């Protein structure tokens, strides 16, 4: 049965949350033992998981700066999680003081934490909403207050789409967002994949199983499957590539081998 719109998603901190696990990978303490336990289990199979997260953050940082360089100062970051450091608004506002950022997450704890972090920041806010309900996001007062939908927006879907199963139709949601944003908008995306992980697939599957156990399945998609999210976008050079290869500041060969897991890309609508 579909949960009625007015019935909130429950909150149970005895259940691990992907946001807090992510924070733990990044050395943060915004997490509880259940989160750390799950993270440790996942790292038993893939010890370099933190490096993947770090590469994600580094890519996001480069992409945000790129967007600002391209003249985009409005950011919609869906699946923002728990902002530890080096967040979109920090990077964007450092690059352009009048940059506007709206974060979106469906985890009530992540939302509450973001609200605390963003207090006093007039250029950034958080919406409690679901990626799969773009209309709710776009109709939110935060988006209305901060973002001019007639001007290009950089849509960030960093390390989130691999938590949406095909049956929930993530492609449809991404397309709906694309159609709602002004021409010239950007899609900044990273996605997990078995491709690029410096481990045999069977071993990497152990990590996938951990996420399945915490009822937050991790969907590993092929490069083609990930490329489909960019339908209607023109890919920005160098296209859909392993994260360290996307417009690197330093030589990719210096990067940790795990940083090459999965794909990153930026697309722009005409």
């Amino acid at each position: 049965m579909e949960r009625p719109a007015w019935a909130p998603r429950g909150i149970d901190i005895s259940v691990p949350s992907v946001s807090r696990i992510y924070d733990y990978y990044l050395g943060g303490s915004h997490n509880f033992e259940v989160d750390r336990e799950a993270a440790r289990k996942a790292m038993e199979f893939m010890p370099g998981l933190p490096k993947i997260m770090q590469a994600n953050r580094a890519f996001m940082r480069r992409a945000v700066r790129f967007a600002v360089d391209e003249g985009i100062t409005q950011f919609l970051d869906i699946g923002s999680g728990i902002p530890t450091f080096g967040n979109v608004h920090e990077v964007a506002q450092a690059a352009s003081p009048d940059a506007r950022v709206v974060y979106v997450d469906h985890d009530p704890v992540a939302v509450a934490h973001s609200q605390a972090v963003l207090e006093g920041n007039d250029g950034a806010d958080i919406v409690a909403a679901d990626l799969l309900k773009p209309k709710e996001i776009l109709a939110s007062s935060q988006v209305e207050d901060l973002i001019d939908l007639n001007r290009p927006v950089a849509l960030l879907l960093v390390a989130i789409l691999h938590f949406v199963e095909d049956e929930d139709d993530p492609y449809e949601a991404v397309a709906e967002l694309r159609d709602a944003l002004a021409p010239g908008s950007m899609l900044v995306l990273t996605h997990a994949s078995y491709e690029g992980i410096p481990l045999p697939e069977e071993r990497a599957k152990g990590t996938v199983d951990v996420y399945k156990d915490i009822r937050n399945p991790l969907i590993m998609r092929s490069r083609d499957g990930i490329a489909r999210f960019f339908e209607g976008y023109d890919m920005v050079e160098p296209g859909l590539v392993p994260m360290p290869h996307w417009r690197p500041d330093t030589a990719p060969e210096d990067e940790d081998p795990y940083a090459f897991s999965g794909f990153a890309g930026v697309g722009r609508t005409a």
Partner: protein
Amino acid sequence: MSAGPDGPEDRLRRFATIWSRAVFPVTSTSSTRPEFEEQLLPLARRLSEALRARTFDADEGRAVGAALVTAHCTDPEALSRSLDCVDAYLVLYCGAGGDQEDLRARSSRLQHAMAAGFAQALRERTLAEQEAISAAALKAQGVVAQALHATEARFRAVFEGAAIGIGIADLSGQVLQVNGALLRMFGVSEQTMQGRNVMEWTHPEDAPQTWKLYDELVRGEREHYHVEKAFYRPDGTVLWTNLTVSLLRDPDGNPQYQLALMEDTTERRLLNLRLRYEATHDALTGLPNRTFFFERLEKALGAGEGQRFGLCYLDLDGFKTVNDSLGHAAGDRLLVEVADRLQACATAPGEMVARLGGDEFVALTTGPDTEHEVDELAARIMNALIAPISVDGRELTVRGSIGIVEGPAGERSPAEVLRSADITMYRAKSAGGNRFELADEEADARAITRHGLTTALPTALDRGEFFIEYQPLVHLGDGSVRGAEALVRWLHPQHGVLGPDRFIPLAEHTGLIVPLGRWVLEQSVRQAREWRERHDDAGPLRINVNLSPCQLTHPGLVQDTVDILERAGVEPQSLCLEVTESALIGADDDLLKPLRRLAEMGVDIALDDFGTGYSNLANLRRLPVSILKLDRSFTQSMQQFPADPVDLKIVEGIVSLAHSLSLAVTVEGVETGAQAEQLRILGCDTAQGWYYARPGPPERLHELALVDATG
């Protein structure tokens, strides 16, 4: 300080580069390594300055250790690698020119301080972040709880405000929670309901599957079921519900609770029962009506082998008179009383009494022994009617006629049985009423014919199925044909030629006698004219036509007769109307007036079947009759020779009396010459009978008359 190659500034940067290369792989920063190196450079400078300061201050080490945490080097490995770097390279790159021993000691103390500063900063950051995430979790829970509270408030409002009864019980049947609507339905307080077990709520009218469904549900074999169920309220009244019970499962799918939704259908049910009652019961007497009775009769007739039925069909004798004389209200009260008495007669299981309509009632008995029981039932009914019924202060004596049909189930249809009962009842009625008769097939068949004739009568006249035969009337003095009696016949398509005795009573009963009688009169008068035209020389032939009692009272009698005679151009003297003695018994002046007028016009009136009624001979004077027709019973004994002297005396007396009143005497049923001779001697005027001629077509009469005239 110089910035030249291998100058102190250059050496400081080289130290920072080495340090950043060592630590960067274990940091979580999203900065690049060169950016990270830029963050470390000021820290390296502080260490370098502390190393060479005039007054040594180890606290600078604490600050640098803390700054590492700020730069997101939160992994303990970052501290370890930093201390390795400082130990190996600080004095080497930043301690040029100083006392090496002293510099090494300072480096060590700076490292100790860095470790302490790192640990403290990490501890504070960890605590702060834990605090922050806990606060966020708490806040989120608050938001969720508030939303849940609003949700729950909404649910509670739905639960409490719902018009249908809602109840939740555990799987053992223990009631956990019920809403106000349910309490109101049961008429109990919440306290009474709490802790009750649903298994207690059995009711005799529970459908057989009700509790089987319940067991399946609580065992988790069924998700829900829907039944109509009755409950006892504490006050003993019954609550009828439309009950839907659903199984509620926990998130893992295990059965957890049962949810009951019930709708109070008591009133609707009562209304249905009432509507059903009204549809199946007679409004006046409250007895089952025709519909209900047919249902029961059908059931009884459809019962299995060995089962029989007995039916009493009762019609009150003379009820119409009560209605006509005392009014319908009194009639109704009489029927109600009869209904009550009848009901008391059929109280055994398998017995029922119903009112079919009007004053017709039926009593039904079923079972294996109805052969015997139905007689008793009829006797009880007759008995119950004996005591007079008091209506409006009058004591009315009620009698009834009962037709009884009894037999085995499975042979006849309800309609057949009822028709047989109806026929038998009429038989009882024709036999004088106040009795019961048993159906027998022969009587049924006769009655069925009678019934068929009655329904066929009206169209028979239109279809020209009637015809008239004429029986000559002969003058006893000279043997001449003086006229004829018109006798109507019915050429029935199935039954052939039927005599008047078969259908005149039916025509009387249905009122068809008036048009039929007019037709006979018309035909006969026309025939009389024809005879006159063709047989003028033989003198006028008179035509005798029978008048039924019904025609006598018909207001158009005189006018019709006059019209018919005038249209045919026949003298009134050529017509004789025969009226039975019984029709004139007790006749008052009103009844006699039309006859008198006809007689005044010249039409002869004959008193038919004279001697069969209880005629007041003195009354004869008063009647406008000119002819007496002696019933055949007087003449029968004269067929033998010698005739019974008493009969002779009687006939002689009657003839003498008639003649003294100026009445002519006609005798019927003359079959022998001796008879004719005897009657002539006795003074009778005219005769008819087989001795002269049987009734026949008009041509025969013509021939006879001609023979008579010529012979």
